[in-house]
């Protein structure tokens, strides 16, 4: 419920879970080994390394998706119902 797919690549990574070479637990999550590759260049170069940047993008979406997929806390459902009730009473 309330599944939010921020963009097409987010949903692509979810579909990727069905591919035979990818275990579901790694869906949408970069492997640590990419970030731990020895840096032969100065940090300057590695900071914008496309592989590192790609993983930053995946982490960002993973962070967002995991929160957005949580059930909405009751306090907010109750709050909205409360606001709506007060609105109706005012009319």
């Amino acid at each position, binding site marked *: 419920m309330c599944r939010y797919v921020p963009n097409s690549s*987010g949903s692509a990574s979810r579909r990727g879970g069905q591919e035979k070479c990818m275990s579901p637990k790694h*869906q949408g*999550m970069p*492997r640590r080994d990419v970030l731990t590759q020895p840096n032969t260049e100065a940090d300057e170069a590695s900071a914008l390394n496309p592989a590192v940047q790609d993983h930053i993008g995946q982490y960002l979406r993973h*962070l*967002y998706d995991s929160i957005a997929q*949580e059930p909405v806390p009751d306090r*907010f459902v109750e709050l909205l119902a409360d606001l709506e009730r007060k609105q109706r009473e005012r009319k």
Partner: protein
Amino acid sequence: MSETPDPRSQLVELLPRIRAFAISLCGHREQADDLVQETLVKAWSHIESFQPGTNMIAWLFTILRNEFYSTRRKRRHEVPDVDGEMAATLASLPAQEDHIAFQEFRTALLTLSDDYREALLLVGASGLSYEDAAQICGCAVGTVKSRVHRARDQLGRLLSGNASRPAA
């Protein structure tokens, strides 16, 4: 379509995205949920300032980030809760190795300046356009682009830096 539906009816379905932005922005669940609550109350009572047909999530994010900064000013003495409980309750965390890398990412994200972090979250995680993000942050499109670029640069540096250090 006989009548224009009340835009307030969209709030429930947008809630997960509002929470995702709030929690990622402030890094602390309780504070984030207080922000979400304030945002909902303000959105509800100022709904007439929302222009139907425009991006409602961008409008809500504007309220939320303004709330975030005014709360932040009041709580200036408090430092962001970098090692907070946020990741512990995140759903479906993958293998331990990846978990550690993801924790490092979260910590690095919270060490960015607020300007950089919000730009990166709006564009890189929430999928908003640079134009929407610029409107939310009250700055030029070019400024958002440069903040996103610098945020990515800093994160890359921090994560590569962590990775090249021997494990503790």
